[in-house]
């Protein structure tokens, strides 16, 4: 019988939530790395007990932890993230130039076919790769060096590379996203890159349709249809049918199209989920009602999912990496909040229940479906 393992990163440690396939009774294990910020944890798709975790602290900097037993034990591995060459400058919030400076790892993306290969998206924005299980890290400097880097600027959370999408159908293809630079794609395993932001419109930058400068919050893809990408931008939910060459808005009837998280159903590539947030200055749900919105048509037509979610006095946020799905049938959907709740639905979003209610603020949620 399958099992579900939910990897939860929070402001004060990591938690591992496990259940059988019924997804009704949960075991909560943690905190791991108590007191540290766990921006992201993720397991290898080819060796699921191989987990990687990004552990950081304003005092002590960045650590990378690795587990070979599904999170029972951990060992620190390499934490040296050195930019290639002279890092150069990017824009600061006030438009002045500021040197690139490593701050933390936002997202870890294990290779689709090698448990020892893993990508790290970092702040200040860059992509690193390790091919020795996280012991050593090397920047894929073609991204930062492709030309537009001096024009990138930080979003409110920092200038972070937060999304990394690997494509099994096109082994050299990597799609990444940076706040606030936009989306970029490589077709040669990260050697060379180009921006893929045509069709995005952002009224908070001088040229709303500029090639770079867009605050992309997250991108999701269904593995069976890799050319179709869904994006939650600062404002606007977007869709691309051509691997990012062009984008069309699919916000449709959403009550607000600001938000952070977006994900795709495991078995229905046109079913997607977002959590609308009121605005960029009010990071909580509209009217104090926590609602996941589901589209079964690839966007534009959305329905509110509310059963089991608080429908009054709820003022939490759901961050960009804090939503994930399992691969059981029916598909399970999970998300975590800045109020410390992790909600799960075992029926594609129709009904929700909290797995836990009182964790530290949740930064990330990843789900593993184990045999």
């Amino acid at each position, binding site marked *: 019988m399958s099992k579900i393992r939910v990897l939860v990163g929070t402001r004060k440690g990591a938690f591992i939530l496990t259940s059988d396939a019924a997804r009704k009774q949960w075991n909560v294990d943690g905190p791991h790395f108590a*007191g*540290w910020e766990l921006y992201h944890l993720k397991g290898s798709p080819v060796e699921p007990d191989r987990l990687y975790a990004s552990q950081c*602290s*304003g*005092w*002590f*900097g*960045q*650590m990378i932890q690795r587990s070979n037993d599904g999170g029972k034990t951990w060992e*620190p591995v390499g*934490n*040296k993230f*050195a930019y290639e060459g002279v890092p150069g400058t990017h824009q600061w919030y006030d438009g002045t130039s500021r040197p690139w400076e490593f701050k933390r790892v936002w997202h870890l993306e294990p290779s689709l076919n090698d448990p020892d290969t893993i990508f790290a998206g970092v702040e200040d924005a860059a992509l690193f790769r390790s091919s020795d299980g996280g012991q050593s890290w090397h920047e894929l400097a073609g991204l930062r060096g492709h030309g537009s880097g001096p024009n990138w600027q930080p979003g409110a959370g920092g200038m972070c590379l937060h999304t990394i999408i690997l494509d099994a159908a096109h082994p050299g293809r990597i799609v990444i996203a940076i706040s606030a630079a936009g989306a970029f794609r490589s077709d040669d395993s990260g050697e060379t890159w180009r921006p893929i932001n045509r069709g995005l419109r952002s009224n908070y930058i001088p040229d709303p349709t500029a090639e770079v400068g867009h605050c992309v919050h997250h991108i999701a893809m269904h593995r069976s249809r890799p050319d179709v990408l869904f994006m939650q931008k600062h404002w606007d939910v977007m869709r691309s049918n051509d691997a990012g060459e062009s984008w069309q808005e699919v916000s449709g009837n959403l009550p607000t199209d600001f938000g952070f998280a977006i994900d795709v159903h495991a078995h229905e590539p046109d079913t997607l989920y977002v959590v609308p947030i009121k605005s960029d200055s009010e990071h909580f749900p509209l009217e104090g009602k926590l609602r996941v919105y589901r589209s079964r048509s690839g966007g534009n037509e959305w329905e509110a999912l509310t059963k089991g979610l608080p429908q009054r006095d709820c003022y939490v946020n759901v961050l960009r990496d804090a939503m994930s799905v399992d691969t059981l049938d029916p598909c399970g959907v999970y998300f975590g909040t800045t109020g410390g709740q992790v909600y799960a639905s075992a029926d594609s979003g129709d009904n929700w229940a909290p797995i836990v209610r009182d964790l530290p603020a949740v930064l990330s949620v990843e789900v593993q479906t184990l045999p």
Partner: protein
Amino acid sequence: MIRVVLPSHLRTLAGVRGEIKLEVKDKPPTQRAILDALETDYPMLLGTIRDHVTQQRRPFIRFFACEQDLSHESPDAPVPEAVASGSEPFCIVGAIAGG
């Protein structure tokens, strides 16, 4: 032997309890020599106290000893004799900056 006190999170990371005792060959010992010896014995601490590349103290780390703040001393200046002799510990402290 030089005695070093780590903050709680770094003791957990290093898998130690209480003070650490280090053999520091440089005479007189300096901050740099102490940190070099510490990172050699506990490589998981690399990057947590000083930057990997610049070797500069991380901004929210302080060095105290003998009721003095040594954070802004040159890393190549000798540490106080009481630290060198082992009668006082070299304290690595996380700055008070909220929780």
